[in-house]
């Protein structure tokens, strides 16, 4: 009786811990959170042309800073992302580097802008600037969510019993890349009024 009970207990425990759908489910979660990351970076890229135009209207001779933003944006948006970018360390690193480049170019622009009170009072600029800040926030949230889902996915792949399940049922599943939280890249443009 006791032995049987224990056997049932351990079987239940093993089954409870051994979710055979965990790998594909977490894989989908990673995909969804990755699209969110891309979506927010895209949103930022879309804001930049208008922002640059508005700044030009007031601060035309800051052309060097503006050029840097345009170039960084071009570099970030022109990159062709491979289908499996989340499993491709090189492409992932490249993506992260390009976006970090744009982040710091924008941060410099926002510092320069501080010297133009008329620009800072422009309604359109205020709207664009708050959207940019909001987008940087959303990027931070999306990155954090992505890091969390990848962590769950990778843990599942690397630990027992997920490791065993994956080896048998999902031999294609690979560990995914995640963001390294570099301080400079995380910093949203600091804007003070």
């Amino acid at each position: 009786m006791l032995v049987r009970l224990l056997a049932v207990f351990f079987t239940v425990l093993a089954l409870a811990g051994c979710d055979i759908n965990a790998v594909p489910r977490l894989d989908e979660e990673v995909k969804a959170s990755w699209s969110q990351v891309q979506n927010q970076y895209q949103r930022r890229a879309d804001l930049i042309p208008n922002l640059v135009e508005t700044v030009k209207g007031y601060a035309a001779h800051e052309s060097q800073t503006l050029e840097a933003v345009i170039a960084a944006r071009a570099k970030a948006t022109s990159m062709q992302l491979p289908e499996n970018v989340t499993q491709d360390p090189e492409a992932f690193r490249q993506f992260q580097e390009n976006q970090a480049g744009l982040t710091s170019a924008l941060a410099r622009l926002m510092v320069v802008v501080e010297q133009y009170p008329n620009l800072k009072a422009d309604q359109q600029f205020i709207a664009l600037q708050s959207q940019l800040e909001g987008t940087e926030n959303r990027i931070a949230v999306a990155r954090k969510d992505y890091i969390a889902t990848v962590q769950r996915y990778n843990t599942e792949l690397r630990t027992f019993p997920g490791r065993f399940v994956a080896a048998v049922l999902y031999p294609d599943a690979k560990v995914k890349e995640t963001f390294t939280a570099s301080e400079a890249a995380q910093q949203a443009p600091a804007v003070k009024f």
Partner: protein
Amino acid sequence: MRRLVFTLLLVVVAVVTTGTAQAAGLSLPPLTGRVVDQAGILSSAAEQTLAAELQAHEQSTGQQVVVATVASLDERDIAEYGVELGRAWGIGQKDKNTGAILLVAPNERAVRIEVGYGLEGTLTDATSRLIIENVIRPQFRAGNMEAGIVTGVDAILAVLRGDPDAAPQPPRARAKDPGGFPVITVLIVIFVITRFMGRRRGVWPLVLGAPTVWRGGSRRGGGFGGGGGSFGGGGASGRW
């Protein structure tokens, strides 16, 4: 024998719950109502008026707006804190994510309007910024914490209702809320009736704004709970 079964059950419970316990590492104030005044900067009269106003807003639009004042941001950025709080409380209808939080941290002198995914189109970052800059900040600067929060909530609700001239104006005098009492009475009546009819899942969501997910502790605070909405970092922050 019985004791053995009991012990094994305990082990199972322990194993199952360790996963969930880890998730709640941050110390966030509990959701005790539509106005959570942890920092203690609101009078109880203002708190009640605000709660009634926010409740009426949810009745008519299904959107959950809550006010939170916190004693400390725990060294975190207010934007980050706002998202954590919104997600932990689950403000807004599930799947629609129609929630917003006016978050005030008086000790850090920081204020934020945190906007759920579903309201980002109406209460945009730019609008949130204008509300903070033009409505809330002048009051906070003058030391009128309560007036800043009350007029700020008015401005947020006006924008969410889609008033054509809801663009934030400089602070204005505020009339007493005449609609608060009847709404509360009606709600209490509904509450009592449904209670006597028995707790059917079908009735509760209608009364309390579709709280399909009950979170721990939310039931005690006057029956208000988050609907399970999520946040993605929309809104604006400001300092004073």
